[in-house]
């Protein structure tokens, strides 16, 4: 099959590896990491524009390399070509190889934050997306020093403790090793960050098999949603995560 893959760049190494081994011919278009922070309407608009630009009749399917991602794919519709969408809350489902594995790990590790090669090397935290992020727009994306300058020491301490210290909602960094790492540099960096924050560190083996099934065309309905032209993605808030929007 000739497939088009539109994906978050968080999967850069994993998708390149999977595509290199796939029987299919896959054209990849990566979008910048961090769209989940700009609000679901803006993320949807950007994705829809890219999906709509895909040349009609050229591909047998358009693969969408996104999870539900903070509802950022809700309302996305297939244009001339069907869409294939992983049933996933976010990228961690794909890194761990399935949504049950993700939920099992997540529920037994409260306060976990994940790292992979893409989490570390991709995205531009000072760039355009940061300026557009919800955190920025509502005034929460500020360092302690910026708060002091704007609101004074006493108020800054209060704001920092109450709403601006994003780090305190986490207690563990887990590095997911996907088998695409050149050496231990990404793991080491994660381990060092955990130590600096005083958090637990764990390394787990990822499972690239769901990513491989995605690009190979093994689209079991339990694992992937197929959206025919004109169809639209809706959240179910249930175990299957996404479904087709009722007409």
């Amino acid at each position, binding site marked *: 099959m000739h497939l088009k893959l539109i994906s978050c760049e968080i999967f850069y190494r994993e998708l390149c590896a999977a595509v290199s081994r796939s029987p299919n011919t896959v054209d990849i278009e990566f979008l910048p990491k961090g769209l989940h922070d700009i609000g679901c309407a803006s993320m949807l608009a950007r994705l829809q524009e890219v999906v709509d630009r895909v040349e009609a009749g050229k591909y047998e399917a358009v693969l969408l390399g996104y999870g539900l991602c903070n*509802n950022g794919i809700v309302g996305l519709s297939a244009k001339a070509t069907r869409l294939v969408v992983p049933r996933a*809350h976010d990228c961690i489902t794909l890194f761990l190889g399935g949504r049950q594995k993700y939920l099992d790990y997540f529920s037994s590790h409260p*306060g976990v934050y994940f790292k992979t090669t893409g989490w570390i090397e991709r995205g531009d935290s000072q760039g355009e997306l940061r300026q557009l992020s*919800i955190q920025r727009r509502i*005034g*929460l994306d*500020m360092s302690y020093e910026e708060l002091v300058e704007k609101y004074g020491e006493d108020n800054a301490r209060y704001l920092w403790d*109450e709403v*601006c210290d994003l780090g305190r909602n986490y207690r563990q960094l887990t590095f997911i090793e996907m088998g695409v790492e050149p050496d231990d540099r990404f793991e080491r960096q994660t381990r060092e960050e955990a130590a600096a924050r005083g958090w637990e560190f764990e390394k787990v083996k990822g499972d690239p098999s769901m990513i491989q099934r995605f690009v190979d065309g093994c689209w079991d309905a339990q694992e992937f949603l197929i959206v025919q032209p004109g169809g639209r993605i809706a959240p179910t808030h249930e175990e299957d995560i996404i479904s087709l929007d009722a007409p």
Partner: protein
Amino acid sequence: MVDLTQLHDAILRGDAKKAVAVTREALAENVSPTELVSKHMIPAMDEVGRRFECQEYFVPELLLSARAMKGALELIRPLLVEQGVASVGRVIIGTVKGDLHDIGKNLVASMLEGAGFEVIDLGTDIAPGKIVSEILERKPNIVALSALLTTTMPFMKNTIEELKKAGVREQVKVMIGGAPVTQQYADQIGADGYSDNANGAVAIARRLVGG
């Protein structure tokens, strides 16, 4: 004689120290506590809310004003209780099971306190059973639930189901919020109220207690 416009301005500017000082002075001069609240403080918070809606104020300003309001209310509340004036309502608030995110929850808690609600903050990762026992013990008017992740949102539904099973669902109003939460989801799980921001949450809470 104390200039009460200073109280209004201190809340508007988020100056907690000034708000508390002016309130103390006013109470020492026997200014009526209900007058302080209704003529000066609530109008100030309403103006804060208006500025937030117009994007003149952002979350930090909202929170600092709520803090100033809360500081002044702490001095006034015992007097209101003495006079038999009931609080606007009692709210128990928490982030649902499996979710440790508390920023949105803290913000809503502060805004509700600033609006005169009695708020019992249960914290994060709160199991449905805990909510049930707190309802039985504390008799709140409202249960407010927060979730940041689509993975933990289902616990909002679970919590409402647990409340039904325990026979306490009709004793409280349930309001929900958090980044991935929508009005559609609130309708789907039978929540009584939803807001996508902390200022709106106050309006919802007031409506739910019939205020």
